[in-house]
């Protein structure tokens, strides 16, 4: 059974139109991550949470925001998507130290 679920799997949005990607985990994990992965590149960390403690990477554009209303759910909001934001967005969760991260299947975002 999938433990980290991302919806939708594929998202097409218009240039400049706000879009929200969602992630849920059934594992009761404290830590959640959002990554952006472009073709043939490594996953790039955008944000991570430890419980409600939010950590923003210094080079994450202001266009990207995140919310974690409860332990299970985490959202990635892109306020005004540009063509350069087209990518695979990965969500992951883990309990904490000495544990592995579990990844979702990803959401592939296309900006038209």
């Amino acid at each position, binding site marked *: 059974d999938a433990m980290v679920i991302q919806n939708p799997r594929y998202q097409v949005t218009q240039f400049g139109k706000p879009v929200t990607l969602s992630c849920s985990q059934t594992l009761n994990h404290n*830590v959640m991550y959002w990554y952006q992965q472009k073709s043939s*590149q*490594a996953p*790039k960390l955008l944000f991570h949470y430890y419980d409600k403690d939010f950590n923003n990477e210094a080079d994450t554009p202001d266009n990207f925001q995140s919310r974690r209303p409860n332990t299970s759910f985490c959202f990635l909001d892109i306020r005004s998507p540009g063509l350069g934001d087209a990518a695979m967005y990965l969500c992951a969760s*883990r309990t*904490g130290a000495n544990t592995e991260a579990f990844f979702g299947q990803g959401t592939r975002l296309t900006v038209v």
Partner: protein
Amino acid sequence: AQSVSQHNHHVILSEAASLELGCNYSYGGTVNLFWYVQYPGQHLQLLLKYFSGDPLVKGIKGFEAEFIKSKFSFNLRKPSVQWSDTAEYFCAVTAGFQKLVFGTGTRLLVSP
């Protein structure tokens, strides 16, 4: 903050050849180390992980990695690669509840 570097960006091998992919990290404290594999068009899969104890870690599909603390390294090895090992390989590091950071990845092509 932790960081990861992978020396080989592209590796081409023939089937049955031995594989070693380099990974070095920078972080002064206790770390958790991972190798992930990403097959073409698929999501990240965990190959193996190191938390503590025996520095030689065995993973799935015949892969192993050795943690050498003095060299800040966690190199991935496989004695005999197969065509089906063609994929991108990512080393990742995290410390405690902190961010999980990926290396730039190594693209492996195994020719039959």
